[in-house]
């Protein structure tokens, strides 16, 4: 995996999560109190920085083969769930992630909640909403940065890609002051799901002691093969026009595994 592929994989995954976190923070700031919401963002980022700082060196100390087995297994489980949800959305069997609707719902809930201040935080609700949004979405970002970065012995490049994604998404969010509804989120999730499965398969297999024909070049076959498989399955599960399946009515509320919501 070259530096460009590492950067792209981490950037896309982090951009997806940053869009979701930005929507939550925008709702907290708009409906409640910007200062408290931004303090929540700062506290959330601090927690994530500590997680990366503690786990990063610990992961790089693990023997590469054991690390690849462990990380490969996790990436495979995550990837299969990301791609399943992306395929269900692409086929119309699950509602597309609607940032506008989520923003409106968060806004209504935030406006209805009681206001209470604690210490320097004038509005505890805005703080908590932002903090939880940043930490929960950011945990997935931190996981991707650490696993991809440590496997390639380049956690710093993965961290730069994550920061770049967050900066781009937040900058656009600040400029438009609205949820980023036009981002092709499902396409990005599909690409990330393909990357996670491909690298999970590659690293997991190597970690288990098997050797790929062609070594690293096997990834050049794995990535397009997984993408083609995902697209083919999206076409297969697409409901026929004469059935009563309606994409908007099929949204599942279940959430999992580092999985996109």
């Amino acid at each position, binding site marked *: 995996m070259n530096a460009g592929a590492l950067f792209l994989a981490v950037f896309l995954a982090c951009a997806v999560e940053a869009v979701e976190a930005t929507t939550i923070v925008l709702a907290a700031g708009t409906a409640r109190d910007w200062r408290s919401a931004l303090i929540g963002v700062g506290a959330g980022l601090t927690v994530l920085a500590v997680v990366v700082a503690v786990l990063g060196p610990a992961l790089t100390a693990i023997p590469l083969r054991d690390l690849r087995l462990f990380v490969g297994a996790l990436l*495979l489980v995550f990837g299969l769930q990301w791609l399943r949800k992306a395929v269900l959305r692409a086929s119309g069997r699950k509602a597309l992630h609607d940032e506008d609707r989520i923003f409106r719902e968060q806004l209504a809930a935030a406006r209805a909640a009681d206001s209470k201040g604690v210490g320097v935080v004038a509005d505890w609700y805005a703080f908590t909403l932002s903090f939880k949004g940043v930490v929960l979405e950011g945990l997935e970002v931190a996981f991707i940065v650490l696993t991809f970065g440590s496997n390639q012995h380049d956690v710093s490049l993965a961290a730069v890609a994550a920061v770049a994604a967050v900066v781009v998404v937040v900058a656009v969010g600040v400029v438009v002051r609205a949820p980023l509804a036009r981002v092709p989120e499902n396409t990005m999730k599909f690409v990330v799901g393909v990357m996670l499965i491909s690298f999970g398969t590659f690293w997991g297999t190597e970690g288990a002691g098997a050797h790929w024909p062609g070594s690293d070049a096997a990834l050049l076959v794995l990535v397009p093969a997984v993408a083609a498989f995902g697209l083919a399955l999206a076409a297969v599960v697409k409901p026929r026009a004469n059935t009563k399946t309606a994409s908007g009515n099929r949204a599942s509320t279940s959430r999992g595994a580092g999985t996109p919501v």
Partner: protein
Amino acid sequence: MKHFKSFLAFWYDFIIGDDWTVAFGVAVALAVTYAVARTNVSAWWIVPSAVAVLFPWSLWRAVRKS
């Protein structure tokens, strides 16, 4: 106890997600790869084959649930 259960539930949801069969299948595929790799038989094809089965299986379960 309640917080401990919530903590475990969070990590189960974060790692295993809403289809435990995927995590189970991945673990089995890697274990089989590990065992086969210790023989003289090539083992690289086991995980891709498992993905080719697990992904449609998980998709089918989700479609049926919906």
